[in-house]
């Protein structure tokens, strides 16, 4: 999952380098990578125990 997240950012950088014109794919891929990051984060946190304790 984390590899895929970095992979999306790499593709976004590649699109930026190859295509000088504005392309919505560039920033859409960055937002997709961040969304994947949120999924990984939510998967990593044990909401049932330690988050409750910390708050």
């Amino acid at each position, binding site marked *: *999952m984390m590899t895929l997240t970095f992979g999306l950012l790499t593709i976004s950088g590649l699109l930026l380098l190859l295509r000088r014109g504005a392309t919505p794919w560039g920033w859409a891929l960055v937002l997709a990578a961040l969304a994947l990051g949120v999924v990984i984060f939510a998967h990593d946190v044990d909401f049932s125990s330690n988050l409750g304790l910390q708050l």
Partner: protein
Amino acid sequence: MKDVDLSPDFARVLNFVGVMAMIAILLGAYAYQFSYRDVPCTLCLLQRVAMLAVATGAAMNLMLGPSPRYYGVCLVSALFGIGISIRQSLLHINPFFDTKTGEPTLEATANPPFGESVMGLNLYVWGVVIFAVVILAAAVMLFFQDQFKPARREPKWLGRLAVVGVAALLVVAALETLTTFLECGLGDCPNNGGWTWWIAS
């Protein structure tokens, strides 16, 4: 009173500085990782994702010309990053959380920080500082509206600068993808370090 404003070209140069600063931080994290032989945890990698995304937003401003949308990419990425950094800082502040087992505990523990400190602060605390600076910088940049006006013909040197900045970003992004694949494969990443063959050899 005449407004103080920013030309599109100068805004692009400032974004180039931003891209390079983020690349320097990511390379610094690599230097730390290999010198201390410290495999990054899941939260550490997520902070790198956020830094790379901030750099990509700045690279879009650099390559395609400044746009509020690209500053938005920087802001959203930095907000994500600061959330992760604060979460990791809180994990190590809270004495009722055992970082060795990853479980809450009713007995107060020493709760050691993750990894070595750099200039007195741990990397995740630096993360909070860096992402706060990015948020402030992107917000201040949005005050200057002249940068969003259509630019005159692009100077050649600026075009070259943009290619250099984006190419450097692409190299670092590809490197991060490769090392993350070597550490995590296509599944979940191991928490609390754990030696892997590529760093232990």
